[in-house]
């Protein structure tokens, strides 16, 4: 059954962080968290790309993006999109193939393995300048 979320930000936060649903809860929680993070990045990215009409300002902003802090942020962005994509595939599969429902736990762990398998080498490659 669908539970009622307590009112207010504090209530929602406590509700989110209370252990209730095992793998399904974490899948749901991280889907929302990564979704909001990606949306905020997308809005900023639309604004910085809009500066391309002013070449000098655009190049200045791109220079700021080359700072190591943004490189680390970039890795988090790729990780967020990758998790959201893999988790979305799993949700959609479970929606359209009800028979898979009894393997939902295994599917979540399969998703985590694929996520780690892809993100670890990607992160090492993306941060290669920082190791030098």
């Amino acid at each position, binding site marked *: 059954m669908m539970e009622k979320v307590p009112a207010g930000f504090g209530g929602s936060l406590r509700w989110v962080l209370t252990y209730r649903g095992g793998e399904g809860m974490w899948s749901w929680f991280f889907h929302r968290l990564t979704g909001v993070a990606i949306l905020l990045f997308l809005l900023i990215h639309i604004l910085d790309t809009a500066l391309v009409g002013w070449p000098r300002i655009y190049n200045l902003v791109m220079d700021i993006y080359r700072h190591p802090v943004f490189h680390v942020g970039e890795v988090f962005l790729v990780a967020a999109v990758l998790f959201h994509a893999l988790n979305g595939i799993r949700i959609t599969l*479970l929606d359209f193939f009800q028979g898979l429902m009894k393997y939902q736990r295994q599917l979540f762990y399969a998703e985590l393995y694929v996520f780690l398998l892809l993100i670890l080498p990607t992160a090492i490659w993306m941060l290669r300048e920082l190791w030098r």
Partner: protein
Amino acid sequence: MNGGYGHPRPAGGFELYSWLFMRISGLLLIFLALGHLFIMHILVGIENVDYSFVAQRYATPFWRIYDLLMLLLALFHGLNGARILIDDYVRTPGWRVFWITILYLVALVFTVIGSLIILTFQPKF
């Protein structure tokens, strides 16, 4: 109900189309957005992205069409997700009006800005 995995499929009307849109746009974005991240952030790298790179990339229509399709799908996928979150978490009627107004303003402003850059950008070499 499907055991708390994703949103259960709504019975009909707007929410059913919203539910379907999230799954269809999500599937397309797996190719468009992950492809974009792979090319721009892993193969090319932010080190090599500057004005002349963008100017070259936008000299032919292919990447403009790719980017416009990705922009609109990503924006509406994300904003529709935000609409669902507002529905779930904002209970007070006044705050709901406030956040829904912000949502529609953001949708309008960012759709216009984003599409205009992609469609009207004139490369200067």
